[in-house]
């Protein structure tokens, strides 16, 4: 119990800081910054509206299509590159170049190629989150302990068994790291894509719309919602999955006696 509280205080302090900053902003310029209580009122009203949930749903839908595709593609490419050195140097270069181009710049193209609606945004999510996944998995695969491979060979494992029983479990932490990095990228590009793509619904669209119609407390409301959802997904869901899958990593190294 006390431990839980000890773990929570930095989080509480962080949230308090942000709310305080907002309130100070409100005192300085109430036109631009809504007061903290009014934001809570808006939040309370907002979540009661179906419009709000439609926005959340639309964003989640795009995320849940784009992100897994990116993870899968990134994982496959990363694994292949990790296994074949030449391909790895090539892929690293390719990614270095592509990554220096902000994903959002592809929007004009994507909109013309795929027309409107979800596809361009999903494509942006994929582009943005493919890179960190591929790189993390590549690093992970290249970092597989040589002895682990040789032990498997000595114990009689065939190539396919080595991939399945050594490479995969050993790169799992890299998959998870990549997945978390990719998630951050996916989320940021999702919101940016929704803000500036032709989407008509979604959290990014909502925030932009609020900005257009001078609804600053709406902007703050959606910034909060975006932050909360990302924090929940990343810190809680992803961390849980990670802890579950990588149980052996989180067991305190002790004498075990």
């Amino acid at each position, binding site marked *: 119990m006390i431990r839980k509280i000890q773990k929570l205080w930095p989080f509480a302090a962080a949230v308090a800081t942000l709310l305080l900053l907002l309130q100070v902003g409100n005192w300085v310029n109430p036109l631009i910054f809504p007061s903290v209580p009014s934001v809570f009122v808006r939040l309370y009203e907002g979540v009661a509206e179906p419009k709000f949930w439609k926005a959340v749903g639309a964003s989640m839908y795009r995320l849940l299509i784009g992100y897994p595709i990116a993870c899968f593609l990134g994982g496959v490419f990363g694994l292949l590159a990790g296994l074949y050195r030449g391909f790895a140097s090539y892929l690293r270069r390719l990614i270095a170049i592509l990554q220096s181009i902000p994903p959002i710049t592809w929007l004009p193209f994507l909109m013309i190629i795929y027309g409107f609606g979800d596809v361009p945004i999903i494509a942006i999510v994929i582009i943005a989150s493919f890179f960190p996944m591929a790189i993390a998995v590549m690093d992970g695969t290249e970092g597989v302990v040589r002895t*682990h491979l*040789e032990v498997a060979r000595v*114990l*009689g494992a065939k190539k396919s068994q080595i991939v399945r029983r050594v490479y995969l479990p050993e790169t799992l932490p890299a998959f998870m790291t990549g997945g978390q990095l990719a998630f951050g990228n996916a989320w940021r590009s999702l919101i940016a894509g929704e803000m500036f793509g032709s989407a008509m619904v979604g959290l990014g669209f909502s925030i932009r719309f609020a900005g257009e119609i001078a609804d600053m407390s709406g902007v703050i409301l959606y910034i909060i919602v975006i932050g909360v959802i990302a924090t929940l997904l990343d810190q809680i869901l992803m961390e849980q999955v990670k802890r579950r899958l990588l149980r*052996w990593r989180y067991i305190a190294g002790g004498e075990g006696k």
Partner: protein
Amino acid sequence: MHTLELRNVSKRFDSLQVLDRIDLKIPQGEFAAIVGPSGCGKSTALRMLAGLETATEGDVLANGAKITGPSPERMMIFQEHGLYPWLTVEKNVAFGLELAKVPKPEAMERINAVLEKVNLKGFNHYFPSQLSGGMRQRVAIARALVMDPDILLLDEPYGALDAMTRLTMQNELIRIWQGTGKTMLLITHDIDEALYLADKVYVMSPRPGQIIHTTHYEAPRPRDRSSEEFVAYRREIMKLLGLDE
């Protein structure tokens, strides 16, 4: 019958000559050891016997047949133990059996027997990170032993342990080997260790590695490190390695 043999073996990595016409014959059931300075090619020789490396020249043979790749008959135990951190002790030991598709009940029986042998009964569901260095090394040995190999190749298995745990582990290794008829080949930096454990100690020269001396020391075990014979052999090997006191 010679179960392990290096016949006039040389090895080069690019332009680096590592081994130079090595000859080595280890009969079945013998406990042999190799000592030599760092970088002289000891690991390379062992890895050839394990089938993880090929010779540039000469023949690497097991039971008279050329070695073309690794085989569960010849188990190698690595210095860094090489346990899979994501598998429990039991699963680590089961790894080779699962690859060989040994039926589950038989596998479990063998695993439990071998864990008892290395004094790790009851640790089945621990992860390697929960074990001490010595315990980990014993799991690595169990993982090799459970395959019931004819030959055990050990590459500095105790290099990472502190001097005291090491002494304990040496005695365990003897216990594990004695009376099984298994062939053992141990690489070590520690002359005492080689003499304490092995029937035959090969002494190698600095790179390019050659075998410059072979010690036959066949005192009964456990050996007394302070006995006159032991001390004399030690002094001899130290001199060969340029470690005169």
